């Protein structure tokens, strides 16, 4: 009897750990989305595309240029960050002053463009990034974990902490918070708003790209991989409160765990529905998000 309970416990822990691993990926993408929302007040549809571009940039760097996996993480982040800045220049700055919905559509146009460009370049066959770690899992308390997953979790946590520090402490981070509060007043106080815009999109795109590279050796990479990620990031941003970085971090983990538990204990086919249902409930009963607004502010 007790061994049966023990098995149950092990299964529970395994689901929990798997959920945390995928959850931190959601956090990374969602923090990018929420920062961009906080500064521009727009929903950036290319956030999932950055995730895909990051993964493919790393794939190109490691497979075609022989760069090591570890080096490919910062390089892919830089490449995608530059892409992010180009996106800001081409489809956000040119439309300044328009209604929110217009930005939704302009970034959606770019999403279609970039995604299909990736399809032309790499085709629809799923690929995998090679992991630099040995495939044998580490067993701890009956939980199986690959080294890649451990690395992913640590690396993502460090990045999130760095971004938080950056926005809280650095000069540019303070300018970002000022612009998020009131763009015009910030500009009057001598803050270079354009620099803030560039930094925001660079950071947002870079974080998404990092998520793509970290997850690449675990899941398949393909041009359409960004869709579901974008929706998950939406859910996390709404759960955490729009513009709230800390909220996005915790809620990413919550979403990951909820999905993993739902898939393990309820029904694996409807794994993606659990997050959506949680989001609808949050919106109905706590529309300001679980942790309230105000991360950037």
């Amino acid at each position, binding site marked *: 009897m007790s061994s049966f309970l023990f098995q149950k416990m092990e299964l529970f822990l395994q689901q929990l750990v798997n959920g945390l691993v995928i959850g931190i990926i959601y956090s990374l993408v969602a923090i990018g989305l929420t920062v961009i929302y906080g500064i521009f007040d727009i929903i950036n549809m290319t956030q999932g595309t950055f995730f895909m571009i990051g993964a493919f940039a790393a794939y190109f760097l490691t497979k075609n240029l022989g760069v090591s996996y570890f080096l490919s993480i910062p390089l892919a982040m830089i490449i995608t960050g530059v892409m992010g800045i180009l996106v800001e220049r*081409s489809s956000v700055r040119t439309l300044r002053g328009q209604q929110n919905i217009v930005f*939704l559509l302009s970034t959606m146009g770019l999403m279609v463009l970039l995604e299909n460009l990736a399809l032309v370049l790499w085709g629809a066959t799923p690929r995998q990034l090679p992991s630099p770690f040995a495939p044998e899992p580490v067993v701890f308390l009956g939980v199986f974990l690959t080294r890649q997953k451990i690395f992913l979790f640590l690396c993502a946590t460090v990045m999130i902490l760095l971004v938080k520090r950056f926005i809280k402490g650095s000069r540019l981070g303070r300018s970002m918070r000022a612009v998020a509060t009131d763009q015009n007043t910030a500009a009057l106080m001598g803050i270079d708003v354009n620099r803030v815009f560039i930094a925001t999109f660079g950071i947002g795109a870079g974080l998404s790209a990092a998520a793509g590279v970290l997850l690449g050796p675990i899941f398949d990479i393909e041009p359409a991989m960004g869709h579901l990620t974008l929706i998950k990031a939406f859910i996390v941003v709404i759960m955490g409160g729009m513009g709230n970085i800390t909220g996005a971090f915790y809620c990413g983990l919550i979403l990951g765990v909820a999905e993993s538990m739902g898939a393990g204990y309820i029904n694996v086919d409807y794994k993606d529905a659990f997050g959506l249902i949680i989001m609808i409930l949050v919106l109905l009963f706590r529309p300001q998000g679980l942790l309230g607004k105000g991360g950037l502010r």
Partner: protein
Amino acid sequence: MNRGRWLFRAIVVIVVLVLPLLFESTYARHILVSSGIFILLSLGLNFIMGYMGQTPFGYPVFFGLGAYTTALGFTYLGTDFWTGLIAAPIVAGIFGFLIGYPSLRLRGPYFAIVTLAFAEIVALILNNWVSFTRGSMGISGIPHPKIIIPGLIDFTFNHELKWYYLVVIICAFYLLVNHRLIHSYAGEAWLAIRENEDLAEAVGIHTFKWKMISFVIGAMMGGMAGCIYAHYYTIASPDLVGFYYITTIFAMVIIGGRGTLLGPVLGAILFTAVPEYLRAAKTMRLVIFGLIMLLSIIFMPQGLNGLVNDIRERFRRR
């Protein structure tokens, strides 16, 4: 002035009636018919987005529900097109009420995303409930509509020309309904809500009720369009609720021009014809499509309708 307007209207009617006869190829006629179906869909979205002013991001869910209503009705109950034409908007309207009831309390991006969430849930069910919906394969073999009066008429809408006139009649019906609703008390209430919801509430408009009515009517329009789509293409699949249709339909309405009747019509024609003719470009097709979307938003913020108005103004001044 008045005579000129009637002349213009007569010309439009004649052009619409003669248009398919100018094209010999069935392919061109096919594009005309599918433009017509997307005109219906974009008029439905425009009804919610253009007049009531909220953005239902998951709007194609009603299109999919309409298509599945008639497809499942045909498969399990043996219903025909005309039953579907009535049942699809009813089912879509019921779902519109169920989705609208929680989500219309929210505004802006929240409303947009929560409707998208509902659409995703419906897509998941359509994909996973294989024993009922046949999963991602979709339901095929939906028959063309027939008009049969024993001994008198035996008429099947089996090629593009017949379909064209059927779709034109339904388009005219949609435009008429749209026009009448917008120029009624309800239309004024919706405009007030679109311009300033708090103020509308303050002057005594029951905003939630009117938003709900608009949302349900828009959903019914989408459902009917879905039914027509299913019988014309003879297939209903979960793709109808997916990302491609979301992108296309929003491009049609916004690039056509929100809050006008002509805008969505122009947008639907443009964004049906362009992807079809880009088929020659094969893999680059959707890349070019995305580029056109982006460029038209940047250079035509008022949409095609704004462009038409500019041209009209220029003629008037002469």
